[in-house]
């Protein structure tokens, strides 16, 4: 597992195994989620895979009424908006992800800073099955 190349492709394979993985620079310790092959801090390229706890808090969000074709296919529209946002992980990095389990018709109830837990969203079936990175409020989560 730790031998996998540092790439977005492998990041997604980890998501399929329900693991939110990052790459840590072995020279300076900076963690990147999603992974980066080259460290933005020290330009080192010796990276190692690290599993995150999958916990964080909401840093920014939006409830989208007019989505792209892929989201319309998932059934989202003006009367059923979806939430997507930026989540600051407990380990520090910020990731962008779908936010599930919130009231998208009452976005004022969604609060920046609210604690979130990772959710691996299964979309599509058969060959089209893919895992989308998501987060849900800790309170609503089954734990």
């Amino acid at each position, binding site marked *: 597992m730790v031998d996998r190349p540092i790439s*977005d492709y492998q990041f997604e394979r980890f998501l399929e195994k329900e693991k939110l993985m990052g790459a840590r620079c072995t020279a300076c310790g900076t963690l990147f989620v*999603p992974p980066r092959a080259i460290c*933005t801090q020290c330009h080192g390229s010796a990276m190692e895979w690290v599993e995150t706890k999958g916990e964080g808090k909401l*840093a*920014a*969000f*939006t*409830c*989208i*009424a*007019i*989505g*792209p*074709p*892929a*989201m*319309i296919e998932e059934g989202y529209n*003006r009367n059923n*908006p*979806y939430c*997507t*946002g*930026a989540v600051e992980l407990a380990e520090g*990095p*910020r*990731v*962008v*992800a*779908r936010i599930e389990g919130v009231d998208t018709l009452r*976005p004022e109830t969604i609060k*920046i*800073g609210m604690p979130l837990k990772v959710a691996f969203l299964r979309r599509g079936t058969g060959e089209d099955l893919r895992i*989308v*990175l998501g987060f849900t409020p800790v309170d609503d989560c089954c734990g």
Partner: protein
Amino acid sequence: MNKKRKLGRGVAMVGAGMSKFDMFTDRDSKDLFAEAFLQMGDSVDKGLDPNDIDALYIGNFTNDFFAHQSHWGAILSDSLGLIPKPATRVEGACASSALAFREGVFAIASGFYDVVLVGGVEDMSKGNTETVAEGLALAASPYERKAGFTFPGIFAAIATAYFEKYGASREDLMNITIKSHDNAPLNPKAQYQVTIREMMGAKIKRAKEKGGAVPDWSDEKDFLRDPIANPTIAWPLHLFDCCPISDGAACILLVGEEIAKHFTDEPLYVAGIGQASGRGLNAADDLTYFEATRSAAKEAYQMSGLTPADIQFAEVHDCFSIVELLHMEDLGFFEPGESYKAVADGLTRLDGPKPINTSGGLKCKGHPVGATGAAQLIEVWEQLRNKAGNRGVPIEGLRIGAAHNLGGTGGTCTFTILERR
């Protein structure tokens, strides 16, 4: 890293022209760029012989996607009758033609060319709204796209972070929209030629004629709060926070400083020019400012020796209302967290001490993405040469103006300061 940069040779702007911005069913990029080119030629006070043009730099975001036609440098050059002049297409999403302008400046500053045509064009309106949205999203990061972000969605998320940090609200964004709509009818090239009040009046009149329920909006903000009149696009952004889909072209003539007077007695000079790159939502330093804008501004200020207070008016990239707020802070016009108060106090209105987006901005002038950066500089040109008519900035001795252009979701930013000497 903090080297003070300067041009190897001064560069002057001596001509400018742009098409009307609108959604055209019967005209494509070639037609629009030709219109801008001809107007640019007419604007050169002492005349332009097209044979004297050494090279072209043309900004275009994604004609490949919108119109299934690529290689827009040489093909447009041909349509202007400028073969065999070298033509280069420049792409930096919504900042494409500000980058084309910059490439033209460098080509002259290097001494290689003397007379360079720069500009940009985009033909976006032929597809449906979903297609246009998909095209624009090509400039977002792959992570943002996978998370379902749309272009408005990214800036909406930035708005939530800014609101949370500084206590601003949707009401503050409305002030931007109202201001842009007040300025646009004074600009004959603008896509929208109506103020919010006029729009409200027209809707009320229509409702009365139809005999239906007549809206009773008390003022412009009341209208903008109406979810029927102003529906949510990506909360907290609504329809009137977003720029329209537009077609248009803009064209500028740059020459070496020492030959500028051969073309006009009133050239403008490039005083400062900055460009920087930034990261997406997942990696940016902070979600309440644009790191690339700050870097680009710093470069332009250092080069020019000017400060934010010296900029008498500016065009500031406002693809969405929230973006104008953040950028005015990034450019140093107001302290972080203060710009929404400045807008509420009217400081950025046409008659205020720091007029912003006198053209109507992207919101109302229109945003044909590849043409926008050059068109912003053309507004500065018209203002500094007293050609802006009723939207002329009423500041005595107008001498210095600037344009700020953003590409993608903050990945490319430019800041260009023009000066009349």
